[in-house]
């Protein structure tokens, strides 16, 4: 059967039904995203300035314009389950240039919030949560950095929670209030055992 390796599966995938059906769209989703993002993605005229500005786009399959389109059409599941949702660097280049004065970055952030409510989130994002919980930093200092800092005549640790550890409980309190840490731990455990 398998004349060319992987060919029948690839063909099958290509021949899948690709229509957008009425039931795929959810008008409420557009509304919710607009409310959270405080932006107006329904005004997008698909010029592509955002994708063309995006540092992620030429290095991945991430297309910000497509996400804005999905919001405008209310394609909730398609948007929230697409792993590309997590490839935005939040650099705000698209927001700077969008001629329709939309903030695509904030639209992405809104959708990430909604996805997280459904436990859709890559593990590395959760590990960042755990790092913040324990050290107050998403990317904590390390020995290589410390050495470099000392070489440049700075203190080994920056004047943050690294130096003032007494502030870490405050940060933990905030994260606990939103159950961020608990959820992160739970999901990481489910995925990694």
């Amino acid at each position: 059967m398998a004349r060319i390796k992987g060919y029948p599966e690839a063909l099958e995938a290509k021949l899948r039904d690709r229509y957008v059906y009425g039931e795929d769209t959810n008008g409420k989703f557009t509304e919710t995203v607009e409310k959270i993002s405080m932006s107006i993605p329904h005004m997008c005229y698909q010029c592509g300035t955002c994708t063309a500005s995006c540092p992620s786009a030429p290095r991945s399959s991430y297309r910000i314009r497509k996400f804005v389109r999905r919001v405008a059409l209310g394609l909730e599941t398609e948007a929230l389950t697409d792993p590309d949702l997590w490839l935005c660097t939040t650099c705000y280049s698209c927001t700077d240039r969008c001629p329709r004065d939309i903030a695509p970055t904030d639209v992405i952030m809104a959708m990430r919030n909604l996805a997280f409510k459904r436990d859709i989130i890559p593990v590395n994002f959760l590990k960042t949560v755990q790092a913040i919980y324990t050290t107050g930093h998403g990317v904590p200092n390390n020995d290589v950095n410390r050495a470099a800092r000392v070489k440049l005549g700075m203190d080994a640790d920056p004047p943050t929670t690294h130096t003032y550890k007494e502030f870490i409980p405050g940060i933990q309190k905030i994260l606990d209030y939103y159950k961020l840490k608990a959820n992160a731990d739970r999901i990481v455990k489910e995925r990694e055992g």
Partner: protein
Amino acid sequence: MAERKTKKETASTKDTTAAVTKQAPAKAAIGEQPQKAKEARVGVFICHCGTNIAGSMDINAVQDYAKTIPNVAYVDNYKYMCSMPGQAVIDKAIHENKLTGVVVAACSPRLHEPTFRTATKEGGLNPFKFEMANIREQNSWVHMHDQEGATDKAKDAVRIAVAKASLLEDLFPKSVPVEKAAMVVGAGIAGMQAALDLANAGIKTYLIEKTPTIGGRMSQLDKTFPTLDCSQCILTPKMVDVGRNENIELMTYSEVESVEGYIGNFDVTIRKKARGVLSVGEAEAMGIVGGGCNGCGDCEAVCPVVQPNTFEEGMKPRKAIYIQHPQVVPLLYTIDFESCIKCELCVKICGEKKAIELNKEDEFVKVKVGTAILATGYDIFPVENKTEWGYKRYENVITSLEFERLICASGPTGGHMVRPSDGVAPKRVAFLLCAGSRDNTGNGKPYCSRFCCMYSLKHAHQLIEKMPGVQPYIFYMDIRSFGKMYEEFYYRIQDEGAKFIRGRVSNILEDPGSKNLMVFADDTLLDRPMKLEVDLVVLAAAIQPAADTNRTRKLFGVSCSMDGWLLEAHPKLNPCGTTTAGVFLAGACQAPKDIPDTVASAEGAASAASIPIHVGHVELEPYFAVCIEEKCAGCGMCVNLCPYTALALIEKDGRKVMQVTEAKCKGCGTCGGFCPGGAIWMNHFATPQIIAQIDAFLLGGEQ
């Protein structure tokens, strides 16, 4: 009755140019009003407007209610009140019921006030005894889903209108004579066409142009879409016609300084900027035989001062004494006194022609015209404000207008299309459409500039035709090819090989060595970001109203829309008129327009502006303010308040009283609302009439 007498006196002391007053309107003393209201017999006519009104409210309920309103003597309804049978209903009811006033509850006064005034007149009443109750635009259309609320609101509207109709008075429009001359401001293709039409209709026309030559933007263009005829070739014959036409008095290098008066009688002061050069005619008038500028250009050759030529978008030099291009009309040199060093070399070389006067100052000329047309055109949006495209930072990013000059045989490069950084012919050229148009960021223009799609197609064609092997790339969001033969033109350019990329360019980077440009965009149809290296980028920059438009429009009392374009009286039904009677708009000053639309609008404006002149007189709405002289304390505080300078203090019987120039008064009511002594009576919007309306609303008819 004392007041009536005063009114007559006022009328007889009127400025005689202002009017043939048919009859001084009779006005009852304020104390007489309730008496008058008691005698009123008002007819109410309710219109269904098909289902426009009847679909959203209960017409019968409104009708039944109207019968209960005081002073109402007759009520009827009809499917279309504005139709001939509908009007006949009004006519008949007035006669049969001895009505003294008419209320039609229907659409807006703007739409049908004239219709129903005529019907009222047909019925034998003064046409101003009519009042409209708007139950469509302000009611049925906005309360489409609230039948009960709409019905109640219609009852209120009818009751209020009846209260006013009970107190309305006979009024008589004023007729003022119209000066048989017109003015056109701005001599681009719009102004030229309008002036030619007016002049050819036998009307003396003053054509005012702020630059030294007529022609406007069109004379900067190389070819014109979609027919590709040479712009100068079709324009110069018209320029010559304008220069020669006996009915056109051309004033170039001139600006409107001030405007006074009103339709039929505008007194316009024109500033003739110091040009420093005498025309042949001016020289003759000064007794210099055989003198004046003949355009020989000897002066230009000797002038030591070099400046950028704005006609060539700064890409070619000119001298301090200059003409902008060889085809200027009038062919007359101009001195740029800002840069002239008065070395007098030009004076010497000009010699016996004695054309040059280095000590010239601005002159002011006064003319009287009946109507005026504004045709002040457009400027290019400063596209360097969109920093991501690098205009003025990268040498090889140019605007489309610069492209026109570079590809034009009479332009700075003699028509050799080269890029600015190294004078080398480009091989790959990117055109950026909507460069600053359709932009809602505040740094840009929200509207479509309307001709950029088409001229960019033209530019792509010109490259392909002139320079085989050149590849034009057109970055677009939509191609708007809406005109006659425009879509066909798009087809043709695509067939010729232009590449169309549907995506807006996000940013451009320059290679500092080669000065080539990296253009970044999203090919939205491929759904892939792209990076394209090109030799030249052409920005189809947005356009905006010409620099001095705001000052000029204010002189003529013309409004502008939010984006600065001059405001027409009605976007569909009166696109050439303005809300100032006697002032019209032509061409791109009203909104972006290509040449066919510009010429059509210019001919429309010329036709509209000639109507009052041919009729010879105009009727003015009799809504003017009237001074009740017994009450006027002569304080004069109203005089400065009037936005139309219609008021003055005069001496009368040994004391000061206010006097209204009725033809100037627009009935805005500023003075009437202000006068501390209540000495100003606003015709048709008089205090007792308005108080009655407010009472009718607040008291629900239970006066």
